[in-house]
């Protein structure tokens, strides 16, 4: 599966390479997580999802969602008002 959007936050060579980038910018909590759930449902186990959001709650909610759903949380990077978090589907 290919990334469906180019996210300017995925710049460094050390960032995880996502299979899918979910653009959840401007969505308020809990919509970024709900969209992530709908997106990851269509992905194979082991694939990497990147969630790109403006909601500051993502930093807390993405790891909590991963723990609750058995996915692996790889980390989060913030830049200005935007942040991107990476998840490996469990």
């Amino acid at each position: 599966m290919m990334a469906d959007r180019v996210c300017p936050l995925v710049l460094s060579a050390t960032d995880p390479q996502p299979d899918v980038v979910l653009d959840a910018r401007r969505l308020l909590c809990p919509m970024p997580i709900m969209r992530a759930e709908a997106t990851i449902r269509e992905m194979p186990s082991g694939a990497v999802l990147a969630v790109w959001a403006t909601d500051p709650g993502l930093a807390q909610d993405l790891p909590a969602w991963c723990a609750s759903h058995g996915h692996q949380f790889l980390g989060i990077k913030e830049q200005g008002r935007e942040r991107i978090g990476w998840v490996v589907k469990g």
Partner: protein
Amino acid sequence: MNTDLETQKPRAALGLLSGGLDSILATRLLLDQGIRVECVNFHTGFCIQGHTGAMRNPEPGAKPARHDALHAAQLLGIKLHMIDIAEEYVKIVTNPKHGYGSNLNPCLDCKIFMVAKAWALKEQLGFDFIFTGEVLGQRPMSQRRDNLPHIEREAGVEGWLLRPLCALRLPPTEPEKRGWVDRQQLKGFSGRGRKDQMALAKQFGLRDYPSPAGGCCFLTDVNYSRKLQDLWHFRADRAYTIEDIVLLKAGRHLRPTPRFKVIVGRDETENNFLAGFRAGRWSMQAVELAGPLVLVEGHPDAEDLALACRLTARFGQGRHLAEVQVSIEGPGQQEMRLVTPLPAAEIPPEWYI
């Protein structure tokens, strides 16, 4: 472990988890009986969680914004199903069969709707019963003794809704009668006090739970309800869109005439947030001066737009200047205007919604 004798699988319960202390404790009581638990949290569009944090600059020292139910699920080590019911929920808010609470909160209809939804999910997932963290008499509308059986009856789940925190004050439910749940290990809490819950939390070693003062939805908030009432009144229609109810959460709202209102951003984060809603609306902002982004809602005429520009200047850093340049953008047009900021004395208090 409490198991299904035929399949040897543990009994499974689906709970409604708000993320508040009561629902956390109810879940723990069942987990401790060896029951397999998953929970559901419904997104109505009015949930308070983190929204204001996402719209405004956080207060110094404020806890980072987070979704309480998700964190409760993490704490409890259970799976949380997050379900968006915002569209269907419109009919509950606009036309509640059992009326509203002290603001525009249709708690009884809301509870019935959520319990029925949880039951449908329980059927789909193949669970045995459902439960909530309700405490008898804790809330005036939806947790009164005479309303609790009513909720189950109307939701079509009579006998199958367990309330672990106040079960001892209620008739035994089917899961108790069938021996799936040990009634002796449930509680008989009642009333508005929190002492029993705090003691149980301590016993469970729980510390990181949200304070009950946080509230669960904007519909119980008097200021929010006033804005929603205003929206319905001036549209002459009780319908709303998700965008409408999100915008009611942001900015200062002033209605100078029945034709229009303005939403005034209160800080940079809120301006950025409101900027995402400019499409299809008039918006304005002072040029080269710090100040709000202003959105105009309704059907303003030319005079109204001129007034909105003066209000924009009024709420910005140029409020004491003789003239301020304001950029105004509307469907398919953009222009600059030089306006006199509206003096504070010319803004009657009744404009503030």
